[in-house]
């Protein structure tokens, strides 16, 4: 067995333990697993949307989503009945941007989140199932007041500290995107559509209900995305078990390919399931949703 190479730290990530995956703080607090998955996935999408509106680079956004995902795992992680997913999303993005070359101000973050979480104007399907209005609505409905800003800023700072404490200040996230580009070059892939599709898979996998970013190393994610992209674009890669060159075995590759392909179906099911009501991203809404489900069960 080759010993782990400590020099590869910058290419690898801390991974969730099986216990952290099966025992989340939210599940201990009685949040149904499927609800937790829905909220986590919606929170990841919220982070992505906010990052785009803030003009943050995709690597910063992706790192924020990974930190957001890690936060909820394990009995020592955050519980959806104690912390609002929207606050954790905002703080994760703020924290990641702060450490990047493109820091952003609390005010920008909070303005964007206020807009995205507005039930009247939000373009996000899981916040505003009716969809963004055609006519631009009055700006009062989504502009943060000064008082609202001050109190939201305090929450942002507090949740930032909570995230840091929960993750022992380990903000390191290695991403598969640049690794994938190197692999594509190594494999001599000349078709740009393959590269584009690879990156698309890697970005979509950020929302994976299997939490692939916190269970697999970035090199494996990169290899699986390339494998899938090449198949979809009908690009013939080299013969032989090329993934082994990139230190991924067949079994892991197979698992990841299945996982990545299932993300689309999962998303469709989510949109279908939450067609009529928003996904709860605030503690009170989570409590209400759990009560609602309880009442429905008792009604039966």
């Amino acid at each position, binding site marked *: *067995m*080759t010993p782990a190479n*400590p020099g590869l730290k910058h290419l690898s990530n801390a991974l969730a333990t099986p216990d952290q995956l099966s025992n989340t703080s939210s599940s201990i607090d009685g949040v149904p697993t499927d609800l937790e998955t829905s909220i986590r996935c919606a929170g990841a999408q919220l982070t992505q949307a906010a990052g785009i509106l803030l003009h943050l680079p995709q690597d910063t956004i992706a790192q924020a989503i990974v930190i957001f995902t890690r936060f909820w795992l394990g009995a020592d992680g955050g519980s959806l009945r104690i912390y609002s997913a929207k606050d954790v999303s905002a703080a994760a993005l703020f924290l990641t941007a*702060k450490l990047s070359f493109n820091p952003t101000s609390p005010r920008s973050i909070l303005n964007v989140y206020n807009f995205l979480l507005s039930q009247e104007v939000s373009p996000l399907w899981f916040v505003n199932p009716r969809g963004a209005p055609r006519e631009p609505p009055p700006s009062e409905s989504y502009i943060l007041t000064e008082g609202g800003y001050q109190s939201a800023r305090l929450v942002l700072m507090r949740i930032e500290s909570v995230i840091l404490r929960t993750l022992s200040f380990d903000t390191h996230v290695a991403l598969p995107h640049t690794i994938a580009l190197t692999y594509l070059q190594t494999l001599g892939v000349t078709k740009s559509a393959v590269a584009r599709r690879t990156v698309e898979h890697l970005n979509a996998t950020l929302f994976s209900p299997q939490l692939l970013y916190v269970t697999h190393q970035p090199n494996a994610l990169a290899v699986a995305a390339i494998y899938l992209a090449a198949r979809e674009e009908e690009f013939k890669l080299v013969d032989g078990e090329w993934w082994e060159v990139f230190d991924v075995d067949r*079994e892991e590759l197979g698992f990841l390919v299945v996982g990545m392909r299932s993300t689309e179906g999962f998303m469709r099911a989510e949109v279908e399931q939450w067609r009529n009501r928003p996904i709860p991203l605030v503690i009170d809404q989570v409590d209400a949703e759990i009560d609602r489900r309880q009442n429905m069960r008792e009604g039966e």
Partner: protein
Amino acid sequence: MSAAKSRWADDDPEADALIAQRKREKEEKRRAKAEKQRQQEEASKATAEAQTRNGDSGPPKKRRRLSNDPDAPDAAEEAKSEEQKKVSSLLRFPVAEWGPCRHVDNFERLNHIEEGSYGWVSRAKDINTGEVVALKRLKLESSPDGFPVTGLREIQTLMEARHPNVVYLREVVMGTKMDDVFLVMDFFEHDLKTLLDEMREPFLPSEIKTLLLQVVGGLEFLHSQWIMHRDLKTSNLLMNNRGEIKLADFGMARYYGDPPPNLTQLVVTLWYRSPELLLGATKYGTEIDMWSIGCIFGELLTKEPLLQGKNEVDQVSKIFALTGPPNSQIWPGFRSLPNAKSLRLPSSSAPSGGGLPLLPRSRFPYLTNAGLNLLSGLLALNPVSRPTAQECLAHPYFKEDPRPKPKEMFPTFPSKAGMERRRPRHTPVAPKRGQEAPQLDFAGVFGGAQGGDSGEAGAGFALRLG
């Protein structure tokens, strides 16, 4: 990766039972929050046990399936060894996990070591293991932007910079209040500054080489990881009694990139600050660390800080007094630096013909030619002329006699940090983040020597702010 597989190999009833049992434990734990700390240790112990158990039954799924196959034991055996061979050809990544911060009460504070500009440090004992560590409390003044980015960068860069010559950050622990944050690091008996102060004679040439090689080796690693230290000085170099020296205090460190991001010029303690920073350069690189290495080299040779300026203007004049004034031949473009406009240079500075100008030999009488050549390179005014850390390590100075002294032959010294309070510092401190970068008027740098254009007696150093 077999580790990943064993992580998933929980499909047997025993593991399910284990998980269920642990789940019950966790629920109990939530009820008895007062006992949280103790329970946490138990839980982590259980995880560790589970891991070793997994390790014992460690082989990946595939192998287990094969060995369960009763019909073909030989083939299974063969496939097993083949599988193992295959697995071993794949690179393993370090498998790290995450968990919440521990509480600072897990450490018993022994004595205070020092108070720097970025927090105070004390010697402490891990109550569970008995190990002695250094505990550094981060200064977290309430900032409108949340957790201070300097503290985050210090933790981030230290966590990434795992190298024998970089101080080892063990973990980050928290106090009861949210803004009590402590870094737990390996304890070192000395810092180089205090050691040099206490020593009667400077280090021997062979010892200087050993120390310098380690410091530059650590720095070379940092630069290869795109980290700039930005506050190298003798008080930030920690030493133990085994001849080992490590870079510490990453309060100014940060990642840089290509193209470089916007950087503050308010970095590096004055005496170790490079001329381009003093002249107000906003774009700079790892060369600023190499200048500091040159200052440290000089300090090792003479036991005294090389360039002890009283302020920025005085620092610049001390530098030029040592190196000679800049001219457009040795440093093209220095004139366009913000603070260079006011610089009036003596007209007599005739450009010397070709090559890097050497520092005056009289200042370092015992240094060999190769040593003077290295020092002159590190203290080159033009950042481009300074050697990189990598080039520095390959310099002939380290290959000529006397050779670097083996670490184990190093003398030992009584430890100030381990026993008693330090003498108060008299070195300047690193610049504070958020300060305004001063607009400096260097008109006075050569004012005294030149005369003529200023009638004022004393030709003091005018520091014009704003």
